């Protein structure tokens, strides 16, 4: 196999590369692994505002399991994650398809759609909060122009507020998904289009059955980027609804932050953070295993 021949190199020339990587490896070990281990340790102590070393076993995890706000946070993040991923990917893909149609002001439109991604979550959250506030924003506008019975008060209804978060987040992230999908679409061979036309496939069918399977890499990239925003969702929630009304839009990252600082309950916060870590690991591990398994089968 030619690959094996190219791979054989002199041992001596690999050392500079390894030395260059050493600082990054050390940082990863000390900061990530070290801090994670410390966090797990602190979650088994009775730390309040500042960390201490009084071991209490799994008491913090028991309190966490009984905590209504934590249960609400977990169910909120799952609902948010599923809706956000689906909506952002679909909207981003549709935008990319539309822009790919050789439209006139293409670079202007690209910039317009990508612009929300350059805004911080705080600005996004605040702007959307004002827009969706029933006494300030869209509902008031509708009332003022005559539709007195119109309602758009999702922001103040506990069962609907999570959807407003999805709306703001999708507005923020669609541009990024669009940019990634557009790059993928541009990489599609024009011959494929001609072949599809000759076969008599309608355009929408071509997209769904031929083009989308070719863009699996772009979807995966966009999906991973969006998934990281889901796990660390905090500033958007603080800016938009601050977890309210009540605890109906609480999310795990906000739970951890609030308990670390204002609530002065480092033990509970680290227990929550460890739970988040375990959950994410539980989701990623099977996927990583599947990826490796596929690679192994291919070679």
């Amino acid at each position, binding site marked *: 196999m030619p690959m094996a021949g190219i791979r054989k190199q002199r041992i001596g020339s690999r050392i500079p590369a390894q030395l260059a990587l050493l600082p990054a490896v050390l940082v990863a070990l000390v900061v990530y692994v070290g801090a994670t281990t410390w966090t797990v340790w602190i979650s088994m102590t*009775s730390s*309040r505002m*500042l960390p201490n070393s009084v071991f209490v076993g799994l008491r913090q995890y028991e309190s966490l399991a009984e905590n209504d706000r934590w249960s609400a946070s977990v169910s909120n993040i799952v609902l948010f994650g599923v809706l956000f991923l689906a909506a952002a990917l679909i909207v981003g893909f549709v935008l990319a398809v539309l822009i790919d149609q050789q439209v006139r002001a293409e670079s202007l439109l690209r910039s317009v759609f990508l612009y929300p991604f350059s805004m911080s979550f705080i600005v996004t959250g605040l702007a959307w909060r004002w827009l969706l506030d029933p*006494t*300030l924003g869209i509902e008031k506008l509708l009332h003022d122009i005559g539709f007195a019975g119109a309602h758009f008060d999702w922001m103040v209804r506990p069962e609907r507020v999570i959807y407003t978060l999805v709306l703001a987040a999708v507005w923020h992230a669609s541009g990024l998904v669009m940019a990634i999908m557009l790059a993928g679409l541009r990489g599609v061979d024009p011959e494929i289009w001609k072949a599809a036309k000759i076969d008599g496939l309608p355009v929408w069918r071509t997209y769904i059955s031929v083009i989308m399977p070719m863009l699996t890499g772009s979807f995966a990239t966009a999906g991973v980027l969006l998934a990281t925003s889901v796990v660390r969702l905090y500033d958007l929630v603080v800016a938009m609804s601050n977890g*309210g*009304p009540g605890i*109906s839009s609480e999310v795990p990252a906000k739970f951890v932050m609030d308990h670390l600082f204002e609530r002065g*309950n480092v033990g509970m916060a680290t227990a929550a953070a460890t739970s988040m870590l375990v959950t994410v690991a539980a989701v990623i591990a099977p996927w990583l295993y599947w990826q490796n398994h596929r690679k192994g089968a291919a070679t």
Partner: protein
Amino acid sequence: MIRSTTAGLCLSALLLAAPQARAQQKAEVMHWWTSAGESAAVRVFADQFNKAGGQWVDMAIAGGANARTAAINAMVGGTPPTASQFNTGKQFDDLVENNLLVNLDSVEKQQNWAKIMPPAIIDAVTRDGHAYAVPVNIHGQNWLFTSNAALAKAGAAMPTNFTDIFVALDKLKAAGVVPLAFSGQKTWERGLFNTVLAGQGGGDMFVSFWGKRDVAMVKGPAFRAVADTFRKLHGYIDAGAPGRNWNDATALVIQGKAGMQVMGDWAKGEFSAAGQTPDKDYGCTVLGAASPAYLMGGDVFVFPKQKDAAQTKTQMLLASVLLDPATQIAFAQKKGSIPVRLDLDTSSLDACARKASAWLANPKTQVPANELLSPPALTGAIEDLVSQFWNDPSMTTDTFIARVSSTLAQTF
């Protein structure tokens, strides 16, 4: 070429090596007083400190929780401010335990706190017999502010307790005015709950809840009545309440668009900034008995230990300026609180503050606020439950009482 490079290198080395010498008596003070009224008040402290020979360096951070977090991080990280604001109570317990604060016994003796301050306030800043913070004001947390214009429009009378308040609220609702201006944030939901607990349940029930954590009392009928009154008040707020800031709700009362607001007396600063006077344009009262339970909260300044001994002198100077009688009166006028020294002539304060001073002369009205009785972890856990009970109509009173009981029984 080489000479100028060497000279350049020497110069930059010198500049880097020169120690960051603090100017004489320079004090970096962290606080969260950023609204219009609050800024005017903290400027009183700054001006008086500057007059006394110090140099006040203001480090204002919006949001109490943010400011406290920044201060704690600075202290733990090795660059502590000269002084930092906390609420009177248990917020700085861990800082004392970790030996990060200066002992203020000398200031306490010199100013004779035992003679001039309410005992509950002194207890709140004392740990193991030593004082670790300087109280600078007393804020009443359970006031009711009313718009005279709105009440007149609705033909409603000023409420005196939690029974006739509903008469007034119904009349306001009928007149098309927002009956209760409310800020739907967890802190103020807990604030309203505390007001009902103290106003309807009384000072003893309040202390029994937050301080003694009496589960038997919580399961009794009196507490259930308090919870029901609290829930009933939810029917009188407007749709824009969730997420609204407290001063925006006060603005509704100032403009006459809302009838009343339950808020601490820091709201008076907003009324003054809008040019309104108590009793003439707006009413202020504490609901309950004739000598009502007055929830005493307030602010203190802690002094983190410094590496430089000269800084400790600055800290003592600042501590004495904060409690100077003239400073206390001037600060109280701008802030809306009453002076923490009860030995001062309060005739120059506004009508509401004079009412409060008269009440506090009777020690039975002096009820410590929940920050003085419960650590932030317990306060936060109860706050989540109160917020849930307020916002979620499907949570029954029984569930609320059961959850509160189990939370009070936990160790914090």
